[in-house]
């Protein structure tokens, strides 16, 4: 589903290489996790895939079901089925959460040649999904993420994911800033979306999120590359011994 080949990326503003040849394939129905120390390039990978400004791809490719992601605008990537749950969801004063979501859902449907969702249908669907994530009517009405707690922001990300039903979900440190209960709620939301046709890439520092969202494959990223790939046991190894051993072993 998601194919990344030899991806090299540097910052646009300065001559600094961040990704130095990333190779990664996420198959439909699978959950892949990327772990790695700070500064290894994990978040950069998520931003480059979703089309954020400020990065220059110097070589390599990234495709989603064969379509060249890197050639698309961010909204086209979204319509093609890519979704990034932000590490730091953005607050947007003056734009209602509900308006935002409905605009997004209908823009994607339109881009795919589907009929727009009526206001009534949309309301019915979002109410049910919000309830599962313990998002109340007030949070739906408020401006996007404004005044939301850390946990509420992350739940709001998962709500967006549930409404947009993407093919490929990237979760960028979704566990950061969450207490145990909030993490469980978010993980339940993600697990409910696991599906044979959907791939996940879960970026995290810590193993504990992976107790709740069980990965099929775990990658270790360091210095802009995937340096080791294994099963769920690799995450436990990191948890017990830190990154030092693994990095020493591949060096």
């Amino acid at each position: 589903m998601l194919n990344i080949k030899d991806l090299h990326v540097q910052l646009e503003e300065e001559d600094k290489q961040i990704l130095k040849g990333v190779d990664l394939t996420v198959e439909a129905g699978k959950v892949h996790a990327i772990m790695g120390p700070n500064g290894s390039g994990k978040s950069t990978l998520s931003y480059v895939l979703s089309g954020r400004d400020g990065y220059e791809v110097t070589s390599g490719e990234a495709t989603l079901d064969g379509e060249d992601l890197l050639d698309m605008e961010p909204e086209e990537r979204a319509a093609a089925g890519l979704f990034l749950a932000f590490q730091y969801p953005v607050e947007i004063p003056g734009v209602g959460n509900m308006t935002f979501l409905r605009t997004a859902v209908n823009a994607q449907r339109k881009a795919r040649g589907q009929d727009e969702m009526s206001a009534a249908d949309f309301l019915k669907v979002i109410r049910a999904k919000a309830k599962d994530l313990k998002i109340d009517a007030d949070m739906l009405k408020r401006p996007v993420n404004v005044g939301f707690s850390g946990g509420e922001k992350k739940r709001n990300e998962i709500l967006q994911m549930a409404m947009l039903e993407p093919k490929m979900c990237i979760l960028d440190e979704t566990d950061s800033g969450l207490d145990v209960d909030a993490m469980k709620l978010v993980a339940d939301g993600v697990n409910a979306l696991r599906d044979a046709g959907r791939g996940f890439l879960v970026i995290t520092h810590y193993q504990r999120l992976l107790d709740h969202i069980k990965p099929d494959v775990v990658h270790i990223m360091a210095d802009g590359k995937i340096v080791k790939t294994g099963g769920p046991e690799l995450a436990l190894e990191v948890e017990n011994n830190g990154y030092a051993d693994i990095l020493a072993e591949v060096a």
Partner: protein
Amino acid sequence: MAEPATQSNPTEDRLATLTMPQNGWADAARKAALARVREMGLPGRRDEYWKFTRPDSLTQPDAPKASLFHNDEGPLFDDMDRLKIVFVDGIFDAEKSDDLTMSGVRIDRLATSADIHWAADLYGSLEADGHYVQRPLAALNTAFATDGVLIHVTDKAEKPINFIYLHENETSDAILHHVVKVDAGAELTLLETGPAAARFNKSMEVDVADGATFHHVRAQGRDHERRAITHIFTRLGTESTFKSFTLTVNGRLTRNECVIDIQGDDAVAHVAGACVGDGDFHHDDTVFVTHDALRCESRQVFKKVLRNGAVGVFQGKILVKQGAQKTDGYQISQSLLLDDDSQFLAKPELEIYADDVACSHGSTSGAIDEEALFYLRSRGVPAGIATDLLTLAFLAEAVEEIEDEALRDALVERLEGWLERHRG
């Protein structure tokens, strides 16, 4: 032999094109106003108060041509129950207007020869009092206004009054003057819509008595080449309320001056505006609020969206006189510059002679928040629509100053339409 250069006098050149209407009751006020114009002279480029806006096209003898602009939008507020008073190129049109009677209000035309005592006292007097800073174009208006209405509100008006200004002649040069007197405890909502004329000089004097309420919602459209100078002069009594909101879209030159004189204790005055300009667009909001009473509140909220070289100006002043304790004055002017070519010029001023007051002011210029834009796009919202959403969000603080939800929704719909047509 070369002719000696004759000294031209722009004020006299302009006055030479005008004829003072005669209608008895207003004649003395008109003559006094003409004397004020001559004394002050029309504004020129070196006038401090016109530093950011060139007055030439407003003062030159003839109106510059403004072609008519049509789009498929229907008349604003059309589904609302209101009393319509229509002016075509600044001339009252009885046929297009509703019958000028409704309960709670007495409406007369400015051109009436009947002696309307209250209007004779008021006509030109708030304008004459409003010259802490010289406003010669307002004095010119008082002297030469050819049409307008006199509204005496004696009770809660049955429904809003809507001045509808149609523009049909490409060189029309209209001077309108309205006078509104809201009696103690009475209430009126006044709506103004339409492009009016190629060049429009409009004044409105509004006397809001104790405990009275005056709401004003205006939509200045739509023709790209039109020019307008407008003044509102208002005097507020004890526990009275004045709220004015203006939406401006398009227009080569618009200057809206609002002069608020708070004379009664515990009064509230809000003046707000939102404008969107693309290209050859110059919009100037000039506000002067005088606090001369206890515990009064004033708010100025102005937001401007500018692109492709559009220019926005804000000159706003709060004057708190000695003894006007517990004044609460607030002023914010902000612009959203959608490109590097547009500019916003702001001159916020506070002048305070009382020691127990809370006054704040702020002015900012900014671009679209790139983080927010990316966030919206990453959810599949196309860049153009995302920019519109963020633009409406920027304007929201000003638009929310309109209390009536139906009026607010109607104006937001206009804004959405404009943004859609002007998507970059």
